[in-house]
């Protein structure tokens, strides 16, 4: 039963610009029927300047990380691995150790070399930040995609087939859901950190990036599978599914042509927020020693190293942390914008 449109304009205070202004615009009488849902979303998103701005920030961050070699070769003239423990550089006319005798690295020089300072090994933080970002982003994005793939398959399977398959999958989701993500992540992470993983033909070394990707994507499955299942259950009952079935469409085809497009908005809403969560979880796991393993740099491992030396060299923790916050923030703001534009009621539970 839908209320008439004029009623819905009422009681929703404020249609001035705000981050989730599109929530109100969802019922904008000016939006003529006939605009496709995706075009409508794009239109609403275009109006959310803040979300777009942060979307651009995120893309810029990704681009910067991809361009890491350019900075390394042309500006910093070093690599992510190159140590400068015994080197000196000239700062304000004074020769300074990159790392002093007590192991304290220099802070930001704001020049080409050691722009953001050096780490304990005398490596250029800016360079490592960019290369580390590649790993953090790679893990975050891959894990989010992994979650979406697995969560989607399980959610569709459970919601569409119902019956015992649904029960099994739903219970399994309940079980995964029962663990705080960090506990579960660490538990699996530490077990695998010892000797890696062998699954049939697949052998993962303990320092493989695939391990954190796998762990994170598995842990978050219920966060997607549950809402997808719920949606599929609801969609199943709708007329167009009946109609499709009456036309003799097979289940697989119905799922792909009728159900999938209807859960697509959930996936789109989920993706940026999920990447943000995955990046944060990666950082937390790495901080605890159960995520990305050295020598692979990542923002999480960089923060972990930095926190040890926060008193003598606070930049070691602040720089990668700020980068992490900026990345996650840009994803969150952009993600909220997408959500508001597409499906203001969708909610992704956050835990990290």
């Amino acid at each position, binding site marked *: 039963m839908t209320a*008439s*449109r004029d009623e819905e304009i*009422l009681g929703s205070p404020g249609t001035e610009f705000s981050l989730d202004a599109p929530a109100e615009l969802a019922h*904008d009488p000016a939006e003529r029927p006939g605009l496709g849902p995706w075009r409508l979303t794009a239109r609403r998103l275009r109006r959310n300047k803040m979300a777009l701005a942060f979307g651009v920030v995120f893309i810029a961050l990704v681009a910067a990380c991809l361009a890491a070699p350019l900075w390394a070769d042309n500006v910093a003239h070093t690599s992510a691995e190159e140590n400068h423990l015994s080197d000196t550089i000239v700062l304000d006319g004074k020769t300074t150790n990159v790392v002093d005798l007590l192991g304290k690295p220099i802070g930001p020089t704001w020049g080409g070399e050691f722009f953001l300072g050096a780490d304990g090994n005398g490596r250029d933080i800016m360079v490592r930040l960019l290369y580390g970002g590649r790993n953090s982003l790679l893990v975050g994005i891959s894990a989010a995609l992994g979650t979406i793939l697995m969560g989607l398959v399980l959610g569709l399977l459970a919601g569409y087939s119902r019956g015992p398959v649904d029960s099994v999958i739903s219970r399994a989701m309940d079980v995964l859901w029962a663990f705080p993500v960090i506990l579960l992540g660490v538990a699996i992470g530490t077990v695998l950190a010892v000797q890696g993983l062998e699954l049939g033909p697949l052998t993962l070394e303990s320092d493989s990036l695939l391990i954190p990707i796998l762990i994170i994507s598995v842990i978050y499955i219920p966060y997607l599978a549950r809402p997808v299942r719920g949606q599929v259950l609801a969609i199943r009952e709708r007329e167009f599914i009946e109609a499709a079935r009456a036309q003799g469409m097979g289940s697989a085809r119905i799922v792909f042509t009728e159900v999938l497009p209807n859960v697509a908005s959930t996936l789109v809403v989920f993706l940026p927020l999920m990447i943000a969560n995955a990046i944060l979880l990666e950082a937390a796991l790495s901080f605890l020693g159960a995520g990305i393993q050295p020598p692979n740099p990542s923002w999480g491992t960089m923060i972990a190293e930095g926190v040890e030396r926060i008193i003598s060299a606070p930049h070691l923790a602040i720089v990668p942390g700020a980068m992490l916050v900026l990345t996650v923030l840009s994803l969150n703001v952009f993600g909220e914008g997408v959500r508001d534009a597409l499906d203001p009621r969708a909610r992704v539970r956050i835990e990290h």
Partner: protein
Amino acid sequence: MSEAGRVPTLLEVHDLEVSFNTEDGVVRAVDGVGLELKSDEVLAVVGESGSGKSVTALTMMGLTRGPNASISGTAHFEGTELIGASDEELRRVRGNRMSMIFQDPMSSLNPVYRVGAQIVEQIRAHRDVSATEARQRAVELLDAVGIPDPGIRVDAYPHELSGGMRQRAMIAMALSLDPSLLIADEPTTALDVTIQAQLIELLRKLNEERDLSIVLITHDIGVVAEIADRVAVMYAGRIVEQGTLDEVFYDPQHPYTWGLLGSLTRIDRPRPDRLPQIPGMPPSLLEPPVGCHFRPRCPHAFDRCQSVPDLNTRLPEAPAHFDRCFLSPEQKRERREVGDGT
């Protein structure tokens, strides 16, 4: 049916305008509406979704909130000016002298409180009575609106009642302080046909027995026929025709009303999902058509329709029958016969 004229006027609305500021521009939801309601009378406000009828009603209740709304005009009720009244003044009238019930009884009752508690809350908001007394009153009210076992149902949660029961409970709540005016906004739309009929019967009974005036907002012409004394037809924020039930039903003056009546459904038949089929779409209130709002959809439109027709009485024999159409009465009669096919 009541006799207009001898009874005092209960509610008088003049030049009511309500518009909403949106990002895309100003939406003029109500555009110069005037209404008059005598004591004991049932006025039906009829129109499609988006015609402004609900906004009109809510504005009278002072429920058109939000910083983006701007309201002008007057609405006089029992000696109180409702437009521009303070929150406190409005609050004292609302639910007390003037009550309102809504379309969807499920969503209109707060799901987390028991039905009785919600009635008690209203009583105690206006009268200084004890909780026990108020509860006793709630049971009586539930009984009065025909809810069986009121002593038990008073403790039911809304979800434990059927749709019809919920609307009855809403009505009980609305009547709890013996108001003189009940605004019923699509009270039957969400209900089954048989339940609809029962509820309309209940409203009629209340109108007769309790001297209750009713403003019935609906798009269901069948319901109107059952209960209304007078009818106002709204289109795109404006009243396009107003008169007694007989006047409007038997001698409709506005082409839009013709369309509405053209597919008059009887209350004992299944209700069509949509309003009567009139070709075209209702206009956007952001950029309404110049002149007569119905012009783009009107098969009889002509040059003059580029300007706005006044709401005037155009029939000498019916001084209380108003309409907003430039066609002469003769033209109307002629074209109505043709278009109507009756």
